[in-house]
């Protein structure tokens, strides 16, 4: 165990004084990320200015065997940037420069601390933008987006972070700088860029990112459709896709989310509807008009009780504001809420929502559902009150059960928020020992001493054995009625 003060002095030798934070009261703001239910005070926080300083920090930590947790903007929702009590919290917030907007190649070279939205703002004068748009895009950083393979509401058409990043510069745990990917669309050798993207800070520290930029669509238009039954809404989504339309965004909200959002941002949502769909189309003006007509027709034929096209840009933005503010809006209904992030094959939506509803009644906790319907990514928001003893644990158990249900129907425990610490037990439901062991072996290639973000993302086999003992009651798996995939 390292002594805080001694360590601070060591780091002060290699970094300017303001980069080393070690006083207890100054460490507190770093004790959690966006998942505030989990908190730990780090031994020390470092805020380097340059990639070279990151190299030096990692070399030192490697030599001294000090755990390192990298942190971007701290907006993550799975506890991925939860500090280690005996380790360094390495914030990349000061590596925050946009190094180059390359109009000719439609690329931007940025440091990891740059905010997601700032990239699009900087590219705007060139008629370009950066496509992935997680709901936290005002605050979240590109480095964090790479670590989590962040998605957003437009990824059905434009892909995830993975599809929009060309190259990263990575510092290995022993302080060597390597470049993965290329300025071109492919790179030689194994595709290590794909391995780093979404690796939750377990394999290295990203200090520079080259992203793709896309032309800003001439026009975006959105249709809002109301349904009196959530399964009908789900089938409508399938119909839109079956007809060859690839919407830029396709989002669904259930009644509780609709009402919460309407109260919060007054988006003009029909509060009586069991579900609404927001379907956005983008492209050139004339073609958008044509496609909107087709979407309206399909939605009506699929049983929508009401179909509304945004009258103007203000209304379009308002329709989206309701969706983008759904989390905080639901947050107003309850002292605390717990956001889940499972993905399911879309045709199971009706069944899954029905089972979530049953769980909600069983646990006595309300649950609002927000759904990236185009890509099957479900965000159930469990409402609870942490001040009521045992309620957080109940919410966690409820959430865990939802994730295991997602796996049981052929989906996954996390679509875009990452495993972090939060979903580590559910990893045991999704993967078998051989697969987990392969993950650990891959980790050892990059970080044999397990210093980078220890204890996150991939559970130990022992942990799974204990978890399994808890969950398999009398030799029976959960959801025995479901066919296993």
């Amino acid at each position, binding site marked *: 165990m390292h002594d805080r003060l001694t360590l601070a002095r060591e780091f002060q030798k290699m970094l300017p004084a303001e980069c080393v934070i070690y006083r207890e009261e100054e460490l507190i703001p770093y004790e959690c990320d966006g998942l505030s239910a989990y908190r730990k005070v780090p031994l020390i926080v470092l805020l380097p200015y340059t990639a070279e300083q990151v190299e030096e920090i990692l070399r030192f930590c490697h030599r001294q065997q000090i755990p390192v947790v990298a942190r971007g903007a701290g907006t993550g929702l799975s506890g991925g940037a939860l500090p280690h009590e005996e380790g360094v919290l390495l914030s990349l917030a000061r590596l925050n420069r946009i190094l180059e907007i390359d109009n000719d*190649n*439609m690329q931007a070279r940025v440091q990891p601390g740059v905010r997601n939205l700032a990239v699009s703002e900087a590219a705007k004068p060139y*008629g370009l933008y950066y496509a992935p748009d997680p709901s936290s895009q005002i605050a979240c950083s590109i480095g964090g987006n790479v670590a989590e*393979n962040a*998605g957003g509401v437009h990824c*059905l058409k434009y*892909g995830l972070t*993975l*599809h929009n990043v060309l190259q990263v510069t990575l510092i*290995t745990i022993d302080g*060597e700088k390597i470049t993965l990917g*290329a*300025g*071109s*669309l*492919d790179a*030689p*050798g*194994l*595709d*290590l860029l*794909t*391995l780093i993207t*979404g*690796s939750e800070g377990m*394999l290295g520290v990203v200090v520079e990112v080259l992203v793709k930029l896309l*032309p800003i*669509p001439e026009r975006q238009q959105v249709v809002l459709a109301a349904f009196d039954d959530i399964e009908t809404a789900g089938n409508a989504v*399938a*119909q839109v*896709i079956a007809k*060859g339309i*690839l919407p830029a965004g396709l989002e669904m909200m259930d009644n509780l989310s609709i009402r919460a959002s309407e109260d919060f941002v007054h988006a003009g949502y029909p509060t009586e509807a069991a579900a609404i769909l927001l379907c956005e189309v983008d492209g050139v003006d*004339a073609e958008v008009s044509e496609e909107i007509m087709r979407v309206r027709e399909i939605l009506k034929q699929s049983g929508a009780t009401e179909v509304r096209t945004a009258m103007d840009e203000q209304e379009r933005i308002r329709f989206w504001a309701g969706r983008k503010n759904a989390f905080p809006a639901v947050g107003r209904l309850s002292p605390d809420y717990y956001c889940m992030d499972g*993905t399911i*094959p879309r*045709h199971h939506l009706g069944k899954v929502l029905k089972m979530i509803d049953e769980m909600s009644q069983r646990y006595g906790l309300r649950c609002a559902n927000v759904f*990236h319907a185009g*890509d*099957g*990514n479900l965000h159930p928001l469990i409402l609870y009150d942490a001040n009521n003893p045992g309620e957080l644990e109940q919410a966690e158990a409820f959430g865990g059960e939802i994730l295991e249900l997602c796996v049981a129907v*052929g989906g*996954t*425990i*996390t*679509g*875009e928020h*990452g*495993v972090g610490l939060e979903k580590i037990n559910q990893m045991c439901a*999704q*993967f078998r020992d*051989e*697969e*987990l062991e*392969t*993950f650990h*072996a*891959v*980790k050892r290639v990059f970080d044999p001493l397990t210093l980078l973000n220890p204890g996150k993302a991939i559970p130990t086999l022992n942990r799974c054995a204990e978890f399994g003992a808890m969950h398999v009651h009398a030799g029976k798996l959960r959801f025995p009625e479901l066919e296993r*995939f």
Partner: protein
Amino acid sequence: MSNDRDFSQSLQSAVKDAAHDVRPLQLMGHGSKSFYGRELAGEPLSLAEHRGIISYEPTELVITARAGTPLQEIEDTLLEKGQMLSFEPPRFDGKGTIGGAIAAGLSGPRRPWGGSPRDQLLGIKLLDGQGQILKFGGQVMKNVAGYDLSRLMAGAMGTLGILLEASIKVLPKPMQEHTLTFSAEQPTAWALLHKMLIEGVPITATYSLDNNHKVRIACSQQRLGEIKTRYGLEPSDKPQSGFWQGLRDQQHDYFKQQSPLWRLSLPPAAKLDIEGRILYEWSGGLRWLATDRPAREIRSLVEKESGHAILFRNGDRRGEMFHPLHPRISVIQKQLKQVFDPQGIFNPGRHYEDY
């Protein structure tokens, strides 16, 4: 399909035996890409019989198939529902399997707009070098549980394991695609193309050789008229779908040359000061060069422009075909090989000499 067969178990025992005897295997689908990469070694293990579409749900935009399933079968099935493999995998000699397409990682003319095998791969069932069957990823588009080991297989040239099954994201095929042709000096052509891209013209393929250029655009007849007027271009007289397929499969005359054929991957606007006649695709991001110039010269010029070069055909297959790696990356690659294939039985030396 009557040819559908699940050979997982016999492949598993073949791998276990080979691992036990430390006997290298040469993984083989249709063999349509056996010219690609370094010299083949090891005992051939055919994956072509392990075939069949396992599931296809058009409204989910996902297809799952066994490795040996012919691309033709997959693409025909998708076409019935108006969908496609958006990375347009090449079918050299008209053949190719889905496993081979993923392992080689090659994409056709649609690549910059339709993605690559790696981009569209959602999940795999992998037979590793110890004969274990492992599942990574899944059938859903968003999935960040665990490291993305399925996509790591794309372009790995079969060196990490056998792809027993793959789930792939598919996309709707554009209702209409048109080809415009024009003649112009290269700089003029690139400026025009860049302007079209920035202005959001839905380009889905480009081709340039000498002063002849072609652009494929997915749009309505009416919009095509507007584009023609705005950019001063003429549509081709005859339908061009055969042209793009020929380009994808390297049936174009350019590929009949006997000199070593280099595949250069570059940032699209990179200026490359190199002698020789270049065929451009991907709005400049992919360039083909048939030349006898020394490898070292080509690689260093391309590297200077943040790109890389692969000796694609007609080269000395005992030398390095793929671009040399940074020493540390080479070490990481070898260690990853150890993880998946500790006995080194899968396609040894096909990708890199020491790996």
